[in-house]
């Protein structure tokens, strides 16, 4: 059935997200929070995250472009915030890359930071795309069949 194939699809996508390390356990926690009272909780949170993190990324990018002396502390603080958010939704790869960035920041390795930042941005974009697909599919599947925990 279309329904079940969609479900299957959804399940597979979700599984991949986890297997490939895009998401981690924290995402499950989010799903657990979803219930009848807040049926779209996960999506809401993820949307919120991407909105907020995009802003952060812009700020970081701006800070990186600033003329010297580079304020590594500020960069670190900004990136910390991003990491904080990312970890709270379970965005594993983004979080990891944030950690790398911060370490480079500690060492005041500007070039390294620039490179790392690009990676962060990339991971962020990839995850965003994947999750958008995921939620879209989820919506198609229907509210009844919220793929929370299903097909894992």
């Amino acid at each position, binding site marked *: 059935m279309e329904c079940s194939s969609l479900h299957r699809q959804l399940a597979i996508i979700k599984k991949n997200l986890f297997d490939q390390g895009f998401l981690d356990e*924290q995402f499950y926690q*989010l799903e657990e929070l979803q219930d009848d009272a807040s049926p779209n909780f996960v999506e809401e*949170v993820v949307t919120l995250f991407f909105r*907020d993190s995009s802003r952060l990324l812009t700020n970081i990018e701006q800070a990186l472009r600033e003329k010297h002396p580079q304020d590594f502390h500020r960069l670190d603080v900004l990136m910390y*915030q991003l990491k904080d*958010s990312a970890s*709270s939704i*379970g965005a594993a790869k983004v979080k990891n890359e944030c950690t790398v960035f911060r370490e480079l920041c500690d060492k005041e390795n500007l070039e390294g930071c620039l490179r790392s930042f690009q990676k962060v941005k990339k991971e962020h974009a990839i995850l965003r795309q994947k999750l958008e697909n995921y939620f879209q599919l989820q919506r198609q599947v229907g509210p009844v069949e919220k793929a929370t925990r299903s097909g894992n």
Partner: protein
Amino acid sequence: MDPASTTSSGSSRAPAAGYSRSPDAAAACGPPPEFPAGLRVLLVDDDVTCLKIIGMMLRKCLYDVTTCSRAAEALSLLRERKGWFDLVLSDVYMPDMDGFKLLEHIGLEMDLPVIMMSADDHKDVVMKGVTHGAVDYLIKPVRMELLKNIWQHVVRKKRFGMKDSEQSGSTEESDRQKKALEEGDNVTSGSGPNWRTMKRKKEGKDDDEEEEDDTEEREDPSQTKKPRVVWSVELHQQFMTAVNQLGIDKAVPKKILELMKVPGLTRENVASHLQKYRLYLRRLSVPQNQARIDGPYTSAQEVPFRSGGVVGFDLQALSVSGQLLPALHFGARRATDTGIGTPTFNQMGFLSSGSSANVSSARSSPMYQMTNRGLSYLSGSPNNIESRQIDQPYHLAQQHGRNTPLKVEEETSVFFNMPPSQTRPLFPGANTNDQLNRSLLMAMSQPGQQFSLSQQHDNFLGQSISRGQVLNGIEAHDSRLASTVRQQMLPYEISSDVSERTVNTLNSSLPGNQISSLYGAVPQSLNSNIQNRCINESVASLYPHSSSIGPTPMTGSVQTSSKTSNLKGISDLPPSYVSSQNKSLDWKMKGVNLPYQSGQQFGSGLNNLDSGSSPATYQDRNTINACTVRKEILSVRTEIEHEKVECISQCNTAVLVENSFSMKSEVLPDTKLQDAFYDSNIISNELMNVVGKQLQEGTGEDASELFDGYSLDM
């Protein structure tokens, strides 16, 4: 439970929104029947995603959640609805205020259990949480299972808080501090019934030494959320009598307790009170140049200032008011000669801080012997403290005539330039004479105060409403000093932590010279929690007259009563956590011991310093301790010539430690402080210095941090 109780940042007020729990239950009996469901949690996190997620998790646990994304907002919420919240969950890194500062504020003012959260799991950060008094530290991302059990902290705090010996779930390290703090808190922050009882008593019996009164307060049943020992004026009088009898050097909590014969009073209560008193004394004794202070404090009641060493009034009071001391230092700083004056002043301030707004005028006088000294002390407050800060308090102090609790608070904070939280409680002797106020003012006006007054002010204001009350009481005296002191006290009352900080601030504001006095303050801030408690306690006791300022449990009676109990005895402030009751050492020195943060470390170290020992050494010790504790804070000191000043500001900073905002980051207390200590004022100086330094360290930073960007009127 209705999960919709949460509200997004802004104002999610559970009570207002018809939550399942009624606000009035806050101060009353324990948790609602369905506990832990319905636990009133305040969630503070600047990250919207986290806020949403954790908020939802908490609701899933059936807690009553209120969210906000700014620390300032959180504090004002907490203040508005005192007693409403059971627990606070806060992120560490927030843009407007460091989570640790918030933690301190809360600890000082409301004494709620606070759980810190952060994605940062570095040991030192976690340690910081512990040392600042967090009951727990969660690493993000937070799992719901962890949140399910947070109610235990509430229960634990209530249960053990009532016994004057808090045994929170914090780690061993923080345990001591917390313990000390608790005791301090117990004493000063006598919430609800305690405070009220005290207030009643105070009003009823001015300066009477009634032993029963205090007991009543203390024996407050566990119906209140946090039963505390309220150091009423009477109680403090008894305390001072006992200390005087024993001699400040030999006054150990155990003996004091025995002499006081107050049923229900525990050794810990006395210990923390003694500690505060010592701090207070120290601060007072910091020789200050009164020059500055005199100006503003014209009215300063002439407290029988016994210059010449130990201040006439009870050091006890001072020590208790640890916080007060800083204030004194401020003023004292100015008048280098005053030096000793502080003690007197302290007393008043000490007491007054505790007392409520109605501090009688008497307050200032007796204690304010130091006056000049104290004032200068205060004025000398930490270098960093910006003069404007001082001015502010000054201004406020002048108002002491009025009863504006809030004002007072503001003043205090302003005065101390310390982070509001800190200053308020610190100033036990608010009532002390004008001199005190003066000195405070002077101190405050001292330049170099790092903390922006406004910030501090805000902080204080927000935080210590009760303080204000105390201040009001303090104002009774005419001396501005009193008010200033009060202010100091207030902060003290509110939160031990804060008081500590305040002390620091005070110190910082003092013109360097008053470092010693500052020290008194500083040390306090160092140990934000502990200090505050101590101070609160001491303050409370110091102010027999001060009409209990309302909420501030502190002592309800900050009376500046002239009965200056001989502060001298205080030197022994062995904070419970400090574990050392150094008694013999000049109280000045001992003051240093105050367990500022690491307080205990300090305290011990300090305590051991005998007055005889070279001040440098002593100071060094303190400094070291302080340094350790608050590295950056010390920077405050530098500005001020007097070491003392540094203390204060530093203390404040120290408290916050991490944030070294505007405060000069000089961080460590230099030996300058020590030198300053060694003023002729001797004991007080030393004490003050140490304390001040520490305070400065702690407060300085804190203050600045607090205020930076935090101009809220909290």
